[in-house]
């Protein structure tokens, strides 16, 4: 957030001046972590993972689990790419089939 009095004075954070290429720096396009349905993981366990890793309330965790189960997949978190990579790695650590991608 920029303060009006400081207009013209460059206090822009470094990253605003950095010139980068590629789609991974577009701040308007968040990334997502997806969990895919699989026949082995228990519904109760998937709910438990969403509760314990993300700290989601039981109701939200169960809704996401049911989405995975009935729709084949669910978006379980949204944010910058780096965070989605961390979430994906953690969920794979739990044995869930997690992937990350740009939200389109």
């Amino acid at each position, binding site marked *: 957030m920029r303060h009006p009095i400081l207009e013209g004075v460059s206090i822009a954070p470094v990253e605003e001046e950095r010139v980068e290429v590629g789609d991974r720096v577009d701040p308007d396009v968040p990334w997502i972590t997806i969990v895919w349905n699989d026949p082995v*993981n228990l519904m109760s366990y998937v709910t438990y993972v969403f509760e314990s890793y993300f700290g989601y309330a039981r109701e939200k965790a169960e809704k996401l689990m049911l989405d995975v189960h009935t729709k084949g997949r669910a978006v379980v978190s949204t944010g910058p790419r780096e965070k989605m990579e961390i979430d994906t790695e953690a969920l794979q650590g739990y044995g869930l089939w997690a992937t990350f991608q740009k939200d389109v």
Partner: protein
Amino acid sequence: MAHGFKRSARERRVVARLDETERTIVVGLMEQVLDLIHPPVQPLAQPEGDTGAGSRDPFEEIVAGLGDVDTSVPAGPDAPDLADVPDTPEELGGRGFGVPAPRDPALDRLFPTADRQDEQAAAEFRRLTEPGLRSRKADNLRLSVTALRGAHRDRVELSEGEASAMLVALTDVRLVLGERLGLRSDEDAARIDELLDDLDRDDPVAYAIAVYDFLTWLQESLVHALSA
């Protein structure tokens, strides 16, 4: 008769009752999965008299991915048309997307591709994360084996940390066994229980299915004990 995991009267501990046979089966499977994800260094030459895989029992061969398991049935008119399922992971990048060379499919299930659109990114993610994931999974398995071996009068007692490790270890064992049994869809999972009714009791595949069901039951009890 096994009793699944329950919260003990002592705060923050969960307890199950598993007899020696049951513990031996679970420990044996955990050690096999441990070998799969953290292979011990093998001597190049087989020792004299060791016939290698041929000396394993049929169930061990199934878990090792060497057994002849065919749980598939011919697709009948009622079989779901896979083409109708949108965006399944298999359609885009499969589970081994970004893996340089074909490898044990159970490893592709334990360490699935994380990016199904960009093979280079998938390979890079795998390169960065797989060593850490393997090491964490191995730690969970070792901790669980130690806890099971420490059972006193069939009583398996776990701290909160051991219980979390056991939960993931049981998941990984079931993922490997499920892969060996050809479980790729929810329909497959329903089908193997029907298959169990048709198989001879002595069939190693029937034994593998029964063990899989036992692990499912055990894990379910542990999740409920921890969620309570």
